[in-house]
Structure formats: C-alpha cells, structure tokens
C-alpha cells in the first residue's frame, strides 16, 4: 500500500511544481504590467540621474517584502498541514526522520529567494528604457502592435469576435501568459483525472501480473506445507465453473498463485515474487512487453525490474531456486508488474513447481466465454454475490483498487482538490488580467463608447478574448496531455514497475465535463471583472493622455 502513497506523494509534488511555475508566470506578468504602468515615472527617474540599479532596487524591495511575508505565512501553515500529511504517509512509509522543521524553513526561505531573484531578472528591461521616449509617450514599449494578419474589412466574423481575436493575434505576447497558465491548469486537472481513472479501470489488473477477466471472487486461503494447496485451489475453481455452467453461463475460471523465489544470473541475484496461473489459463494469455510467453517447462518470463537487477535479457539462462531445488530456465519474455515495486517471474502453466512453498494466491478470476454487455455482466455479478455470499465479488478494476487500498478514492479526493485550486487560479488570473486590460485600454474603451458601442458589447468583447484564449489553452492542454502525462506520470509508475502504461481516458470527463467546468468558472469571472467597463465614461476620452 505504501507504493500507492508514493504515487499520491509524487502527484502532489508534480502539482506543486506546476503551481510554482504558474506563480512565477503571474509574477512576471505583474512586474511587466507595473513597469508598463509606471513607464513615464521610470523615465523621469532616469532623466534626473537615478541609476538603473537603484530603480530596479525599488521593485526588488517591494517583492522582497511580499515574498518574505509569504515565506513566513507558508512556514507557519506548513507545520500543522505537514504534520497531518506526514502522519498519514508514515503509516505506510518508513520515514528517516520526522523532524522536518528545518527543511520547511529552508524551503520557505529558499522559495522567497527564488522569487526575489526572479523579480530581479524580470526587471532587467528597465535598462533598455529611454528616458526621453518614456517621458514623451508615457506608455510601455508595447504601445503599438505588430502588423495584423486579419482585417475587419475582409473578415466575415461578427465585430466583437473579430476585435477579440485580432487583439490576441496582435498582442500575443500579452496573452501568452494567460495561455501558459490556462494550459498548465488544464494539464493539472486532466493528468490526475486520467491517472485516477486508469487506477480505477479494469485494465489495471494486467499491471499486477494477472490476466484480464470479468469478475473476481475473493479467496480466503489457508495454506499448508503440503501438496494439497494446489488440489484445494483447483477444486474451488471447478466448483465455480460447474455452478456457472448449471446456470447456462460458460466461463473460464482461473487463479494466480504466488511464490517467493531467488533468481540469479552469474553473480547477480535477487529475491522476487513468482507467479503461475492455474485453471483455464495459459502463460500466453498474459501481457508481455517483449518476447513471447514461456511455453515449455524450462522457460520463464521475468519482469523489467528483475531483468534490470540481475542484468538478464531474452534468451539468457537464469537460475531459480524453487523450494529446495535450483533449476535453470531460459528467459523468453519481459513483462511489467506493479507487485512489490516491479518484482515478478512467470512460469509456464506446464511447469510443476513445489506447491508446498506457495506464498499465497489472488482471487478466483472469471472470464465469460460469450461477449456479454455491461447489463448482463452486472446480472451475473449479482448471481455470483448470491452464490458466494461469504466472499466478495468484484469487477477487475474494483478488485485491484481494493487490493491497493482504495487508491482511486484517495486520488479522487486529490483530483477534486486540484480542480478547486486550478479553478481558483484561473479565476484569479482572469480577474487580474481583465482588470489590467481595463486600466491599460481605458482610452480605447472610452473611444468605443463615444462611437456608440454599448456597455454589454464591450463586456462581451473583453469576455470573448478570455474565452478564445481559454479555448486555445484547453485545446493545447488536450494535445499536450498524452506526452506530458507520459513525461510526468510514467516515471512514477516506472519506479513501481510499470514500464509501459496506457492511460484510461474517459472522453466525456476529459473532453467535455472538466473543460466545460473550467470554461464556466473562468468566463463567469471574466464577465464579472469586465463589468468594470460600466464605470468608464465615454467622456473620459478627453482626459486620457
């Protein structure tokens, strides 16, 4: 179960890194916006002989104050929150030390130092500002846009759509910040969604050295050091099979048995879990990353982790200690498993192992022979529950989820928390951006009002800009989802033995529900912020420089 805590911890780490990136992007925007607003003042300071270093110092002092306040607040909050998290994790992970106070302090002030250094980096453009230009124009260097790619006189778009799209095309640098934040936000939501859905899906069963099946009946196994272990398991499988046949249901019934064995090649050896399928199953029905299933008694497949540890490859001979005897096997395939951080050896069903040394078994797996739909499967599950009232009956995904301690449930909680955080970030960024646009574009808004544009048209114009940027970001996020998930989540799974993962994507959730939720929250905050347009009077055009 500690493996799953590692997934949670790693996911939280990825989310934290993304949040730090987002805050740096927001900081960069804020500094640039402030500098653009104070462009003339900077020009005046330069004109009266204040050096660049001192002007930059004014900004750095401000951000130093803010970041130190943030660091202190963060450190204070980290004590109770950190303790709660550590308490939960240390139940399953052995912690080297539970005294993390110094680490928290270093992290908090390290973050403040990074913020100050980043602020210093962002204010470097002060050096390029010409005092005469700044005093004369009073606007930042982005006062005139680049040549446009689209033209109103040739476009068929409605006026407000055109204005919004044209602003984005012309001022792409300004909107890039938003695109970056919204894209990161989209990824932040969807990566845990896909991870949680994958960990909930039926396909997860193959990552735990089991073959695909429809239902699993939990098995309480009382092992003895006798040959009877195998006989009693097979009897149970036969009984399930015959009960199903009596009800007209044809199914394959099989089970996974486990051993702990030593495997070695030359001087490198390790202890690993070993598996063999018994019942209506052959080694060919399992999933392998490379090579072909072990078909003979003297053949085995080994997991990626075992192969790496003993430096073995397909075609190599390895020695495996089964009970008291050591036998030589040829490796025919490499597979992945998340059992015990990737440990695994698979034998052919033909190999006769020493069943006195069985370490355990998984539940009884049932795979129906007919291609029945979900409704029929649910009906059959109900029958099984009735027949085996003393046992639990699961779908494949449910069985694994139960085995790994309701990881999907934990991730579900994290998923909701991240969604809330991202929605808040999107809304805050939108408010910040729209407010800054209103301040910067006061003249244009007054002009459009004077020309007869209604308040609601101008509010729609501002909201549409955010909407288009958000649409671009969501599309970009969806396009990047697969490669970024691979990059960010695959290493975590690899640590646990899964080297080739295929995410389970719920199209409605990923492509409709979550984007729609993000759209609604963001557009609502854009619309509410743009409401400030009402306070700008058309006559203010005369007071704009």
């Amino acid at each position, binding site marked *: 179960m500690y493996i799953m805590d590692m997934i949670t911890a790693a996911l939280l780490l990825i989310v934290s890194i993304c949040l730090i990136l987002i805050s740096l992007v927001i900081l960069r925007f804020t500094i640039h916006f402030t500098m653009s607003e104070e462009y003339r003042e900077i020009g005046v300071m330069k004109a009266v002989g204040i050096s660049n270093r001192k002007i930059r110092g004014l900004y750095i002092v401000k951000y130093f104050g803010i970041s130190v306040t943030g660091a202190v607040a963060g450190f204070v909050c980290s004590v109770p929150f950190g303790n709660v998290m550590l308490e939960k994790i240390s139940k399953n992970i052995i912690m080297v030390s539970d005294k993390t106070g110094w680490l928290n302090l270093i992290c908090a002030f390290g973050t403040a130092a990074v913020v100050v250094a980043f602020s210093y980096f962002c204010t470097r453009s002060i050096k390029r500002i010409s005092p005469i230009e700044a005093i004369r124009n009073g606007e930042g260097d982005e*006062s*005139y*846009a680049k*040549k*446009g790619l689209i*033209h*109103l*006189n*040739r*476009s*068929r778009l409605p*006026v407000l759509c055109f*204005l919004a799209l*044209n*602003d984005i095309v*012309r*001022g792409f640098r300004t909107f890039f910040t938003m695109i970056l934040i919204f894209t990161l936000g989209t990824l932040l939501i969807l990566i845990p969604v896909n991870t949680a859905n994958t960990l909930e899906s039926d396909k997860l069963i193959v990552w735990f050295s089991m073959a695909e099946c429809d239902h699993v009946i939990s098995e309480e196994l009382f092992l003895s050091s006798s040959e009877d272990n195998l006989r009693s398991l097979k009897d149970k499988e036969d009984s399930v099979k015959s009960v199903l046949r009596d009800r007209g249901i044809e199914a394959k019934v099989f089970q996974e048995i486990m051993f702990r064995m030593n495997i070695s090649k030359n001087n490198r050896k390790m202890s690993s879990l070993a598996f063999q399928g018994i019942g209506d199953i052959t080694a060919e029905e399992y999933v392998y990353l490379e090579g072909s299933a072990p078909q003979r008694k003297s053949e085995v497949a080994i997991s990626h982790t075992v192969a790496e540890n003993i430096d073995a490859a397909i075609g190599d001979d390895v020695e495996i200690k089964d009970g008291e005897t050591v036998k030589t096997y040829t490796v025919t395939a490499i597979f992945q498993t998340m059992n015990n951080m990737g440990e695994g050896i698979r034998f052919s069903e033909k190999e006769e192992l020493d069943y006195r040394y069985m370490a355990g078994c998984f539940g009884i797996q049932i795979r129906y022979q007919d291609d029945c739909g979900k409704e029929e499967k649910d009906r059959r599950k109900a029958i099984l529950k009735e027949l085996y009232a003393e046992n639990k009956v699961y779908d494949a995904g449910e069985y694994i989820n139960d085995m790994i301690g309701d990881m999907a449930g934990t991730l579900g909680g994290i998923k909701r928390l991240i969604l809330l955080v991202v929605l808040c970030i999107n809304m805050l960024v939108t408010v910040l951006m729209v407010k800054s646009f209103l301040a910067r574009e006061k*003249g*244009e808004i007054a*002009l*459009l*009002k*004077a*020309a*007869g*544009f*209604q*308040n*609601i*048209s101008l509010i729609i114009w501002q909201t549409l800009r955010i909407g288009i940027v958000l649409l671009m970001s969501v599309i970009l996020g969806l396009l990047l989802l697969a490669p970024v998930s691979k990059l960010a989540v695959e290493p975590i799974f690899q640590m646990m033995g899964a080297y080739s993962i295929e995410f389970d994507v719920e199209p409605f959730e990923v492509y409709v529900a979550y984007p729609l939720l993000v759209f609604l929250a963001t557009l609502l905050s854009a619309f509410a912020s743009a409401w400030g347009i009402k306070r700008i*009077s*058309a*006559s203010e*055009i*005369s007071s*704009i420089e």
Partner: protein
Amino acid sequence: MGPSGSGKSTLLYTVSGMNGMTAGEVIFCGRNLGNLKEKELARLRLNEMGFIFQQMYMLKNLTVLDNIILPACQSDKIRESRKETARRGCDLMHKLGIIEIADNEISEVSGGQLQRACICRSMINQPGMIFADEPTGALNRAASKEVMEELTKINGEGTTIMLVTHDVRVAAKCGRVLYIVDGNIKGEYNLGQYKSREELRDREKTLNNWLLELGW
C-alpha cells in the same frame, strides 16, 4: 470658444449624451437625451452622431480603414455587406485624400492623415451631427488647414458640426460662435456662411476684436 477649464468640452459631451446632465435638457432629433437609457444613448451616438477628438484616438490593433468602418460594422443603420461597408470607407478616404493609407497601421501615418481618418470614421454612419473637440489642437498649421477645409466641406454638404476650439482661424470658418467662461455663455456671434478668402480674413479680424472685448 473659451479659456481652458471654461466648460467647452463638458458642454460638447453633454450635448452629445456622453456626459449626464445635472440641470436643463438636451433635445436631439426631437428626443430628450435626459430621458434616454444608456443603451438608447449609445445607439443614438452610433447612428446619428460622429465624433472627432483633439488626440487622434484610434484602436491601435486595427488598420486605418478598419478603424474607419468599425462603427458601421457595429451599426444596423445601413444594411449592407462588410464588403460594401469597406467600399464606402474607401470612398470617404478617397474624398479626404487619404486612400493610400487605408491598409496602414495607425503608427505609420502622420497626425494630419490620422485626423482626416478620424473625420472619415465620424462620417461613416452618415450622422446628422458631428461633434469635434479641438480637432486641430494637436496638428501643425498646414495639417490644421487641411482638416478645417474638409470639415467646412462636410458642413457645406449639410452635416451640422459643433466644435470646440482655441483657434480664431478655425472659429472664423464657423457660422455661429459661442464664447464660454466658467460654464456660462458670455457671448454669441453669428457669422453666417463665408464666400471668399478675403471675407474669411475679415471675419478673423472681427472675431478677434469681439473676443478681445470679452476678455480673451
């Protein structure tokens, strides 16, 4: 006309419905502006009024032609395609002698050209009245002369123009001059139409004397 801070622009913005009024009433095309909602005022400004300002305000993200046709694209006064609107915009630019800057960015043209583009924009919806707040205030003498010639021509074609100016030469081209001090009309001078350049020079002198009498 009037000294700085006398309330010239305030009067202009109040008459055009941009500023709310605290007393009195403004009747425009038979409608009391004080009784109109913001939406109706905006519609009236869009369709029946044109505006020219001292600073040549234009949307920096649009070309000159796009800026000119923008109010027409938003208005439903004249039902036409975007292509026809663009053609009308080009016709106006041609008339004011700036057709060569149609596809230019606003940062690429001179102040005089830009102000003439603003005149085009104010006329694109064929308004009944144009409000001009010191239209020549930011222009050099030559450009100022050109702009005033265009405004006189437009006025001659039947469009009423109400303009605020500090310049006697500009005021001399107007038919009626109001002199405002501290928000009150201190004097009114009806000059009527002028017919020749000589007459214009005489009007300038007469107007100058009148203004001096009022404390200009």
